[in-house]
C-alpha cells in the first residue's frame, strides 16, 4: 500500500513514508480485528459496516480507503487468517524431523495453538466461511486442501493404500474443522489442548491402524500433561 510516486513527491519534507505505511497497516489490522470479533459473535449476515467502523475506531472514509465493503473486509480477514494458519501448520510439519506420525502431531498441535490464540478469526474461517458458493468458502477450501496434503504420505504406511478413498485426506480435515468449530461455538477455545490427542488419533487411524494411532495419541497426551 505504498503511496504512488507522484503522491509521495507531494509529501511535506520530513514525513516518513514508512510511518504512513505503518499507520495504514495499523488501520487495516484494527478493521480486520473488529470484523473478526463482530462476525464471531453475531454472524456474518447480522454484522454491519457501522458496527465495524465503530469497533475499529476508524472513520468510514478510512474503511473505504482499504475495503470497498463489508464482504471485502471479511475476505481480507479470511485471507490473512488462513495464510497465517497454513504457514504455522506447514512450518511445524516441516520442522519436525521424526516419522510422519510425529510430523502430523506437530502440525495438529500448531493448528490447535493457532485456533486457541485467535478464536474469533478461527471461528470466522472454520464456521462462517464454510458456506459454499462464495469466495470465502473457496478460500477456506483452498487452505483445507493444502493442509490435507500433509496427510498424504500416511498412505505409504497402510498396506491397503490402494483401497483408501481418494477423498480421505480432505474428509478427515473436514472432520477436524467440524470438531474445532463445535468447540469454538461452545466457547471452549481454552480447552482445546485436551482434545489434541484424540483428534490426532482420529487423523492417524485410517493410515496406521487403531492400535498405533492410539499409542501415538497416548504419547501426545503424556507430553501435554507433563
Amino acid at each position: 500500500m505504498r503511496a504512488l510516486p507522484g503522491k509521495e513527491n507531494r509529501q511535506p519534507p520530513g514525513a516518513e513514508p514508512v510511518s504512513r505505511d505503518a499507520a495504514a497497516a495499523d488501520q487495516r489490522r484494527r478493521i480486520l480485528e473488529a470484523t473478526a470479533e463482530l462476525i464471531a459473535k453475531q454472524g456474518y449476515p447480522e454484522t454491519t459496516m457501522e458496527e465495524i467502523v465503530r469497533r475499529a475506531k476508524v472513520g468510514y472514509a478510512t474503511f473505504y480507503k482499504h475495503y470497498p465493503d463489508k464482504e471485502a473486509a471479511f475476505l481480507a480477514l479470511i485471507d490473512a487468517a488462513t495464510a497465517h494458519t497454513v504457514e504455522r501448520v506447514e512450518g511445524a510439519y516441516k520442522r519436525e524431523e521424526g516419522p510422519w506420525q510425529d510430523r502430523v502431531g506437530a502440525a495438529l498441535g500448531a493448528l490447535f495453538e493457532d485456533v486457541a490464540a485467535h478464536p474469533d478469526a478461527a471461528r470466522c474461517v472454520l464456521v462462517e466461511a464454510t458456506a459454499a458458493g462464495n469466495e470465502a468458502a473457496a478460500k477456506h477450501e483452498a487452505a483445507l486442501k493444502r493442509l490435507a496434503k500433509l496427510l498424504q504420505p500416511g498412505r505409504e504406511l497402510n498396506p491397503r493404500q490402494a483401497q483408501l478413498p481418494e477423498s480421505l485426506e480432505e474428509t478427515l480435515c473436514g472432520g477436524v474443522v467440524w470438531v474445532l468449530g463445535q468447540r469454538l461455538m461452545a466457547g471452549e477455545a481454552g480447552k482445546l489442548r485436551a482434545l489434541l490427542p484424540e483428534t490426532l488419533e482420529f487423523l492417524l487411524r485410517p493410515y496406521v491402524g487403531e492400535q498405533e494411532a492410539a499409542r501415538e495419541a497416548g504419547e501426545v497426551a503424556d507430553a501435554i500433561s507433563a
Partner: protein
Amino acid sequence: MAAEELGPLPAGRHGYSREQVAHHQRERLIAGLAEAVAEKGYAAVTLSDIVRHAKVSRRVFYANFERKEQCFLAAFEVVVAHLRELVAEAAAGVDGWPQQAITALRVTLAFLASEPDLARLCLLESRTAGPAVIARFNEAVAELAPALARGRAERPEGARLPESTEDSTLGSLISLAQRKVAANEAEQLTTILSDGAELILLPYLGSVEASRLTRAI
C-alpha cells in the same frame, strides 16, 4: 416440495378450517423459501421473493414468521423430520448396528440426491443463514451421535474410543457431503455411500471389517 405441487389454495368458501388454511399457508411459505433459496441463494433472498414464490401476502408471512431466518429454520426442520422418518422406517427392518448404520446413510443420501435443492439448502445455505441456523444445524448433527455411539458395543475396543469419536466422524461425513453439493453434484450424493459408510464403521469395527462391509455395498 414446490409451491406448485401443493396447488393453489381454494378461494372463498372452501370448507377448510382456519387451522387447515393456516397450516397450508405455512407449508407454502416454507416451499416458497426453498424455491427462492434455490434460485438465488439464501443471502440474496428477500421477503418479497418468499411471498412471491409462496403466492401468499406479506401479512400471511408475518402471521407465521417474524423474519426470513425463522422461515429458513422451519424449512430445515421439515427436512430433518422427514429424514428422521425415512431412516427410522428403513432401519426398522434391518438387523445389527453396522447394517443399520449403512442403511441410514443410504436412505439419507438417496433422499438428498433426489432433492438437490433441499440438499443445498440444508448442507450449504444453512452456513450462511446466521448463528441461530448454524447452531440448529450443528444440534441436528449432534442428535445423530447416540445412534453412532451404539457402534461402541460392537467390539471390546469400542470402550476405549475417545469421547470425540462420534463428533469427528459426523463432521467428516458432513464435510464429504458438503463438498459434493458445493461441486454442484448433489444429484450424485449416493456415490459417496461406500466411502461415507467406511468412515462411519472404521472406528467401531476396525479397518479390515469396515472395508469388508463397505466393499459389499
